[in-house]
């Protein structure tokens, strides 16, 4: 393609790099817009060794008997000139569509030059021609087989003793701490459950305990009666005497008036 727009004498700015106006000399030129499959775009893009050799051929076919009717518009086909190996179909049907949004083609250069290259006259979609359907079928088959190859495999584990399935040594400490935590919770429950009994009942219980044994320590009494310490202390203060000295040091003893003497 020749660059006939090299010289532009229409710019008004002194700065040649930034052209303020658009070149509209080719605004009315007709351009075809073609939506290409990847294979076709590859053929059209490949730089040929021989520049003068065409990369494709467009065939326009009309029906002479109905050339002026709208029922049979001209048919367009494109034949690729590719020399690639494989089952690539080389003949495509170009379906034309007329009703589309008006479009223009613009071009800009790194120097900032902008021009209108034309407007879209026809819009085409491409599909393989009926003559080349067998080739297209083969191409699809190859594609499917290519993607059906499995990339992952199932293999049997050699070491099936199960040693690697057991927990690591670091987990042992965790397991030991578990039971200790469990032991703590019932103790708290007993603490919360401890409630005061009636004072009369408690006094009766204390008298029975002292019948069984004349000297009791506070801890032993708490274990036997399962009562709050302060409550028990109050009762013992009234009914018993604390031994600070002697063989029964640190124990409570029933007062004489409450004791059954052996007289």
């Amino acid at each position, binding site marked *: *393609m020749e660059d006939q727009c090299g010289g532009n004498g*229409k710019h008004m*700015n002194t*700065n040649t*790099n930034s052209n*303020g*106006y*658009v070149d*509209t*000399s080719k*605004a*009315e*030129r007709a351009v*075809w817009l*073609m*939506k*290409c*499959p*990847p294979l076709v775009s590859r053929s*059209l*893009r490949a*730089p*040929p060794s021989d520049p003068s050799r*065409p*990369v*494709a*051929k*467009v065939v*326009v*076919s*009309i*029906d*002479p008997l109905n*050339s002026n009717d709208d029922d049979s518009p001209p048919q367009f086909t494109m*034949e*690729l000139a590719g020399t690639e190996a494989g089952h690539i179909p*080389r003949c495509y049907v170009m379906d034309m569509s007329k009703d589309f*949004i*008006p*479009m*223009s*083609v*613009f*071009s*800009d*250069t*790194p120097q900032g030059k*902008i021009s*209108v*290259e*034309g407007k*879209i006259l026809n819009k085409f979609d491409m599909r393989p021609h009926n003559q080349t359907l067998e080739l297209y079928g083969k191409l699809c088959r190859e594609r499917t087989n290519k993607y059906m190859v499995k990339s992952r495999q199932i293999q049997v584990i050699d070491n099936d003793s199960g040693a690697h399935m057991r927990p690591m040594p670091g987990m042992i400490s965790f397991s030991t701490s578990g039971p200790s935590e469990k032991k703590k919770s019932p103790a708290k429950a007993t603490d919360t459950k401890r409630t005061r009994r009636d004072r009369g009942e408690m006094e009766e219980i204390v008298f029975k305990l002292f019948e069984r044994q004349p000297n009791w320590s506070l801890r032993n009494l708490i274990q036997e009666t399962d009562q709050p310490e302060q409550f028990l202390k*109050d009762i013992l*203060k*009234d009914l018993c005497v604390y031994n600070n000295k002697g063989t029964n040091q640190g124990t409570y003893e029933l007062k004489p*008036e*409450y004791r*059954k*003497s052996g*007289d």
Partner: protein
Amino acid sequence: MSTDLQLKSSCSGCGSTTDLYGSNCKHMTLCLGCGKTMAAKRAKCVDCGATLTRLIREYNVRASSPNDKNYFIGRFINGLPDFSKKKSAENKWSLQKDGLHGRQITDTLREKYKNKPWLLEDETGQSQFQGHLEGSQSATYYLLMKERKEFVAIPAGSWYNFNKVAQYKQLTLEEAEEKMKNRKKTADGYQRWMMKAANNGPAAFGEHGKFDDNESNTGGGRSHKKTDEDDEGHVSDKGEEDEEEESERKSRLGLNKRAGEDDEEGPRGGDHDLDDDDVEKGDDWEHEEIFTDDDEAVGNDPEEREDLAPEVPAPPEIKQDEEEEDEDNEEGEGLSKSGKELKKLLGKASGLNESDAEDDDDDDDDVDDDVGVPPVIATKQKDALKEEPIDNSPSKPTATGPARGTPSSKSSKGKRKLNEETKPSNTATPKKEPKLSAKDVNGSASKSSAPPKGTPPLSSKGGSSTTTTASGPVSEEEIRAVLRQKTPVTTQDLVAKFKARLRCSEDKQAFAEILKRISKIQKTTTGASYVILRDK
């Protein structure tokens, strides 16, 4: 690719050189008319014998030569702009990135403004378009441009959606002048507002004006002229004030107006010194106006008082709260008084003799009954209690009589009477418990000892009596009575009964001594030990 079609220079049928086509077998060159004729006749090719059905043309497609041009597509939803007006008026179009107007484009700027929208506008500014980049186009598009019987395939780049920009009306010179005049009018209004504010705000402004008037008067030199000019000035000032009052009555500017009036009185006084009696009349008139203003001010006061009215009910509420507090205090004092009375009574009881103590006990019973709230059951209990003292009073002299005598028959009678005395006391104690439970707590608390199970103060008083009789035989008699009533009595039961009385260590020791002297302990086969009276 199939063999290329080689069109000949002329139609093989009629020899025309325009509108030539090839046959579908590519062996003949025909024009459109001859093609139609042969197709209608179902003629066959001379070379290969194939039937003619379609006429074809072939165009070669070449790849685009590599250049620096970047092609992009612009979609115009509202229709394509007229780029071909060049011939008529040489209309020129400019297309540039938004914000990149008039700059020297470099690679850095190009990369920076890559996603900026395009701005397309013509020289006159009547048509403006803004092109936004469309979303990613996954498909590959090629542009086929015709060049001398061949097509050139050019890959298409980005897509832009161009929308028309709303155009603002271009004002003509006359319209612009009209708008400017309107602006001037608004400016005049602003100046008027400034004049009004100046009249209101600084008082010096008014004084300054009056000084000017005075100067003009002095320049005139005639007294008559002075009076006329002064009147005119006053009239104008009053008019302005009235208008201002009407416009802003209750605003703060009203207060400023009053201040202005006060300031104005001063210079008027000066005028009075200089002018004749006619000015005095004017001063009186002005005073009347000021008075009317004061009336309006006075009118505002009742509104303020009405505002204060809702505050009035608040104080009685506060007073009610205070009254409630006083009542609470009084209740507390009552409790303290009752406590004091109880303490006094207890002290008296402890101090008196046995017989006197008993009499005081009866009095205490009466007092307690009165203090307590009397339900139906309480009234019955009161009646029962009243009967008991009657029973006690006749028994006492009879008891004292046989005590003094020494015959055996009399002594036996005395014992029987003692038993009778003890029985009603035992029966009386449970009756009194429910009534005096609350007060018992207070009594026990006052004594500063561990609270018992809720024993009545009468029992505690009985304990005090026992303490006094600990050295005497009364306690022995009581213990003997208990032992006789219940033959199998354990030490625990006995202690439980007299626990209320055994609070002090001395009481406990005395109790133990009495038990040792009076009774002995007998052990049974079951293991329980019972207290039994010794035979004297």
